[in-house]
């Protein structure tokens, strides 16, 4: 009896153990199947991106070679827009491949610039210009790069290249996955000179409005104290700032911060984070407070061009004026709390990037009546004024601005005040956060 009593629990224990092992095995197998399934899905997505990239590279190559020999302007336009579209696809595909940014940034840079350059050419040919020999030289050198880039992409061993192998910038995986020029002679990327948002000239542009002698940290601290509304002794010095607008960084009470430019000791930006409970002041009152604030810093001739309200706070954009012409590139932004009208944030980086004396360049060759003829007959302008708008690259264009209403929607149409070319159309779109220009 005693012995059977002793053995019974032992049988039970091994039963339980066996059952548990079986349950664990089933669970483990299910997890394994799931993991394998996810792994396959990731592989499939990688493969898809890879083949899309191969397709795009082939299309770019074909379009570029055709473009070099195309003689009809219409054909050239179509090829150019094909290339710009395909280069967008190609960069999107590269971004979704398991490759790190340092490995692919040169090829992404090249493809983005190629697309951008083609858009700039479309703009030029749209103006009636034909491609000149310099454009052709650029296109030929870009095609050479495309051919080599395509070879690199085609030679990537798919199996090896797309293994999922985690890692961040902070820990870039061993054996960089896709690398332009790997195992081949490294590709030399040409520098193309043109006017567009991705052009190198824009990368290297320096602030036109910061042309004063340098100030010391002590002088900058004076400006910071005035900007943050405190005493110099209450400021914290948070280090020097590099980049395009070198300067000094200061803080007050760990709540409000600002950067002061080394050139001239100008307030580049102020930023704080105060809550606001109740909208007490209206937009007209706030606008006047912002204008007074601007005047106290010496910006006397500014006009509000846009505003937005969120979180009981109002953000306003101001543009400078010269000889009565509105200068959109001279942009300053101000954010105020709507309860007491405190200035929460201020930004003059746009202003200092672009501000110059524009004397002598503000005379319009066309009258606004002449420019009116270039606006679509569907639109009925309700307001007209002369203004300067930023061009696609670094330049600026003097335009007649027509505010128009069509189908209860507001449009802004910009007609070049010297050539009559329609430069830009903006449309006001209402969003949850207020109106936006698109």
């Amino acid at each position, binding site marked *: 009896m005693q012995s059977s009593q002793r053995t019974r*629990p032992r049988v039970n*224990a091994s039963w*339980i*153990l066996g059952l*548990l092992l079986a*349950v*664990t095995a089933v*669970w483990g197998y299910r997890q394994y199947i799931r993991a394998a399934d996810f792994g396959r899905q990731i592989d499939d997505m990688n493969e898809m991106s890879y083949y899309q990239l191969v397709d795009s590279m082939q299309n770019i190559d074909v379009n570029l070679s055709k473009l070099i020999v195309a003689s009809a302007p219409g054909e050239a336009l179509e090829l150019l827009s094909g290339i710009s579209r395909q280069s*967008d696809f190609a*960069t*999107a595909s590269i*971004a*979704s491949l*398991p*490759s*790190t*940014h*340092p490995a692919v*940034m*040169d090829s*992404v*840079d090249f493809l*983005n*610039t190629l697309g*951008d350059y083609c858009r700039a050419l479309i703009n030029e040919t749209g103006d009636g210009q034909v491609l000149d020999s310099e454009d052709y030289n650029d296109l030929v050198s870009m095609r050479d790069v495309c051919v080599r880039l395509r070879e690199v992409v085609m030679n990537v061993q798919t199996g090896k290249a797309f293994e999922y192998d985690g*890692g*961040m*910038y*902070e*820990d*870039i995986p061993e054996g960089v996955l896709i690398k332009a020029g790997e195992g081949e002679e490294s590709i030399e990327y040409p520098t193309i000179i043109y006017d567009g*948002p*991705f052009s190198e000239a824009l990368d290297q542009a320096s602030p036109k409005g910061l042309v004063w002698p340098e100030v010391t940290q002590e002088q900058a601290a004076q400006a910071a104290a005035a900007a943050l509304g405190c005493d110099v002794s209450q400021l914290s010095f*948070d*280090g020097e*700032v*590099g*980049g*395009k607008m070198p300067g000094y*960084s200061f803080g007050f009470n*760990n709540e409000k*911060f600002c*950067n002061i430019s080394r050139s001239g000791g100008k307030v580049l*930006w102020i*930023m*704080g*984070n105060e809550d606001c409970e109740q909208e007490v002041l209206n937009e007209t009152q706030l606008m006047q407070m912002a204008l007074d604030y601007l005047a106290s810093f010496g910006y006397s001739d500014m006009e509000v061009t846009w505003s937005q309200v*969120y*979180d009981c706070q109002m*953000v306003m954009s101001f543009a400078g004026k010269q000889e009565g012409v509105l200068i959109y590139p001279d*942009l300053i*932004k101000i*954010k105020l709390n709507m309860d007491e009208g405190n200035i929460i*944030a201020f*930004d003059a*980086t*746009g202003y200092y990037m672009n501000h110059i004396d524009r004397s002598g360049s503000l005379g319009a060759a066309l009258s606004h009546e002449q420019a009116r003829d270039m606006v679509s007959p569907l639109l009925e302008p309700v307001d007209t004024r002369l203004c300067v708008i930023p061009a696609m690259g670094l330049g600026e264009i003097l335009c007649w601005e027509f505010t128009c209403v069509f189908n209860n929607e507001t449009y802004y149409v910009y007609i070049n005040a010297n050539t009559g070319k329609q430069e830009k159309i903006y449309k006001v779109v209402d*969003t*949850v*956060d207020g109106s936006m220009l698109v």
Partner: protein
Amino acid sequence: MKLKKVFAIFAVLTVLSVLYCPGALAAEALKKGASGDEVRIVQQRLKQWDYYDGPVDGIFGSETEAAVKKFQRAHNLVADGVVGPSTGRAIGITISGGGAKSPSVSSGDTYLLARLVYGEARGEPYIGQVAVAAVVLNRVDSAKFPNTISGVIYQRYAFTAVADGQINLEPDAEAIRAAKDAINGWDPSGGALYYYNPAVATSQWIYSRTVITVIGRHRFAI
């Protein structure tokens, strides 16, 4: 006896681990084919607000789906006809987020940017959060990176918060405000394309970039 205790503990752990299946906790979004009281509430609200004129029967059919889409379009939500956490919030019902596994439900780029800011930089000073959002926007403008906010954020290996899922946390009001301020043009990073935390960054490459400014724990570089 000892062995039995070990078995017992093992048994409990095994049962628990079998019960804990992450899939079972996924978001209970309401979509076509769903039914129940939650659907009834959605129909009722949508009817009150003139988006829906079918029966309030608690069955999510094509008419309900069309009404949800209409509502989503009117509220700047992704018009997918699915009542996920954000649409639910807008309608005024709570949809269990379940780890917020449905990034498809968002109210556009601002919200996506705010999620990245929250995932990457919560706990940083406010201007540090604005600066992180500004880096994303600087990348969109740079030729070296993809040309959309989502393209930049979801670029492979670009952000830790995307890889470990922290981007799917619900952002707080501060992160949303930081994203809006950056979209409105504030850039405390001084035009940076990169940032890293020197306490944890191990890549040699990132240290080779020129530092513009330091905010909180992050170095901002170009």
